[in-house]
């Protein structure tokens, strides 16, 4: 009997017995397949590792996976088009507040997250605030990129300066740095780096843009006055006018080519200097995020999650992929290690990850005692809150104040703009 007739015989008689007798896998002719749309990672090596893990996944489970990549600025438009046509990928990488934006289109993955939390401890605050929408997990937290204080350790040592621990101490040290010709580099312009610093400063003073109810403007409180005054004196005594026209890469470039003495940025500034073998690489180090007067330490975090579209016909295989990538400790660790400290795990027990030991400069990334939030905290990241962020109201407000407008007027302007958005 040749193979073909044997197969036909089996399908006629059918049954588990026939399959067991010949050893033909049950999924023959019915292979499961999923597609995963992922962003272009900061660390290119991480994307390669992901492809590798994908291949192993196929070997181990028989589910074929196609991994597509997309540049971060293109993600919004791409997701919008997939939602409109109700067709596209099964699994998508969701960053920051996207789960809120696409809540009606995402599968409830609370069961998956609970599994992971049992293994790794609760998901970090920034992940919870962005991936849990109205009590339901709409995406699975996977990793994050946070901001951290990046400074020229060699210059500090040479001048005998104390490494600052609070925003106020930064001002003291910053004055000296500027006199040395290495000013502090905090942007005050329409970019996300600006919001990423203004947020923590405001939060550490106990202030906020919008209340937790997401509807009441809170920017006109006394803490905002303190924040604006701090920025004013920083701009006057510790920084140069160029920060008013910086883009997201400017603070990286400034510290990399030797000008800035202290910047607030994710690890990209140091890693690029190291990889490009720049002169400043040896002198750059990080320290823990700064605290406010009451010891409150807050930091901006960019969490990235994995979500499953409701219109997908392969929800169960998709969940298996997520379990494979994140659920198995060895695989999750492998994935994080390939990211060169750009991507750090989003669960409490994994915060002190082995990847931090690959370079002594990563020690401060442990960030003990720091609370992480996404833009707009503590208001939940709804459409309107995101619009406030994307309209750069906070940066514009600070820019006005440091260039001559009175603090009161600038804050009133900011509050009014936010009010217009919350109402409109």
């Amino acid at each position: 009997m040749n193979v073909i007739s044997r197969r036909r015989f089996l399908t006629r008689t059918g049954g588990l017995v026939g399959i067991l007798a010949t050893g033909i896998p049950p999924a023959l002719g019915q292979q499961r397949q999923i597609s995963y749309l992922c962003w272009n990672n900061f660390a290119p090596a991480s994307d390669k590792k992901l492809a590798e893990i994908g291949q192993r996944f196929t070997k181990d489970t028989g589910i074929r996976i196609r991994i597509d990549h997309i540049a971060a600025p293109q993600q919004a438009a791409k997701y919008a088009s997939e939602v409109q046509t109700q067709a596209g990928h099964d699994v998508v990488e969701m960053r920051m507040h996207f789960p809120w934006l696409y809540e009606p289109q995402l599968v409830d993955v609370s069961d998956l997250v609970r599994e992971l939390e049992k293994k790794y401890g609760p998901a970090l605050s920034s992940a919870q605030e962005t991936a849990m929408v109205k009590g339901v997990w709409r995406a699975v937290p996977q990793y994050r990129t946070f901001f951290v204080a990046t400074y020229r350790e060699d210059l500090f040592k040479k001048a005998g300066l104390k490494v600052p621990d609070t925003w106020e101490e930064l001002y003291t040290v910053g004055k000296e740095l500027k006199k040395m010709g290495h000013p502090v580099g905090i942007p005050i312009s329409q970019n996300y780096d600006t919001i990423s610093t203004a947020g923590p400063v405001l939060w550490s003073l106990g202030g906020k843009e919008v209340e937790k109810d997401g509807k009441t403007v809170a920017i006109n409180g006394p803490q905002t006055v303190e924040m604006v005054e701090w920025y004013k004196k920083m701009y006057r005594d510790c920084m140069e006018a160029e920060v008013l026209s910086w883009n997201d890469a400017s603070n990286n470039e400034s510290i990399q080519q030797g000008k800035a003495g202290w910047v607030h940025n994710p690890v990209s500034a140091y890693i690029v200097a190291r990889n490009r073998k720049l002169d400043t690489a040896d002198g750059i180090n990080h320290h823990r995020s700064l605290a406010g007067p009451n010891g409150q330490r807050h930091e901006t975090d960019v969490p990235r999650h994995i979500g499953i579209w409701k219109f997908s016909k392969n929800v169960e295989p998709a969940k298996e992929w997520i379990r494979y990538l994140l659920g198995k400790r060895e695989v999750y660790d492998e994935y994080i290690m390939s990211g060169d400290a750009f991507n750090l795990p989003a669960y409490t027990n994994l915060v002190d990850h082995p990847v931090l030991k690959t370079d002594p400069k990563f020690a401060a990334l442990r960030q003990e005692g720091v609370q992480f939030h996404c833009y707009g905290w503590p208001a939940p990241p709804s459409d309107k809150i995101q619009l406030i962020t994307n309209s750069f109201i906070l940066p514009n407000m600070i820019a006005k104040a440091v260039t001559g407008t009175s603090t009161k007027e600038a804050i009133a302007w900011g509050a009014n703009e936010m009010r217009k958005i919350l109402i409109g």
Partner: protein
Amino acid sequence: MAIAGAGVIVAARPPRFRLRLRLREWLNREEVLGPLFVTPALLLLLVLVAYPFCMAVYFSLSDAFIGRPSQFIGIRNFVNLWESDAFRQTFQNAFVFTSIAIAVKLVLGITLALLLNQQLWFKRWIRGAVLLPWVIPTALSTLGWWWMFNSLYSVVNWTGIALDLMDPPGPNWLGQKYYAMTAVILVNIWRGLPFFAITILAGLMAIPKELYEAAEADGAGPVRRFWYITLPLLKPVLGIIILFSTIFTFSEFNIVYVLTHGGPINSTHLFATLARQVGLETGRIGEGAAISLYLFPVLAFVVWAQLKSVRREVL
């Protein structure tokens, strides 16, 4: 006679051949072939230009948002836009950008065309070099300008400082309001000048030499010859170029998107880039469509002017 003969032959042939012959004859008639030949183009333009245009109008009159059902809201989008700082700034930018860019392109274009009209060595090479900026993909060549205006490594600043025209470190071109607009206009001029120059050159070459010789014999100097002969005879060509350039410059997207993305603080946003930011990046399709429809009045004016003054002989 030939036809009668053919008719006899046709009558003697089988029916299928007669049908094919009739089809051939039918296709040979102008009233049939004409519309047939024009139909593909017409269909394409109806489905992919006229229909989307109507959709744009519909979107602009609704509160369309990505992934959600929309409702008709009348002209609220158009009215609300005027309350937005970003939009008012964009409106101003569009007119400033277009008028300055076209004025400079016109003057430089005429100058360059006059130079190219002379007897030159390496004429072909020079013409080729001059036309290059227009041929290369704008998005890619703008990347080169982006690097040239980089806040730290700008070669423009380096040259300016070396020639003692600027104080170090030189302006942050793409980070400051008026400098950014200057940069964007500069790149637009760089890209658009070849179009002006080469087209005006063609117009110049069409002017009969005898007119100049006669004027010279009458004692007219080069300036008077230019003013009273060249310019008037160039008017039709200039008219066409300005009209074309108006609509293309007004609706510019590539340069602004790659160089400044509309910043800093919306000071270089044009209708196209703002429409994309509002419509696609924040998802408010209704508002985005309304913004891009502000291009329509200028488009309508250009079309009307072109049809009135120029198209009569050709169409």
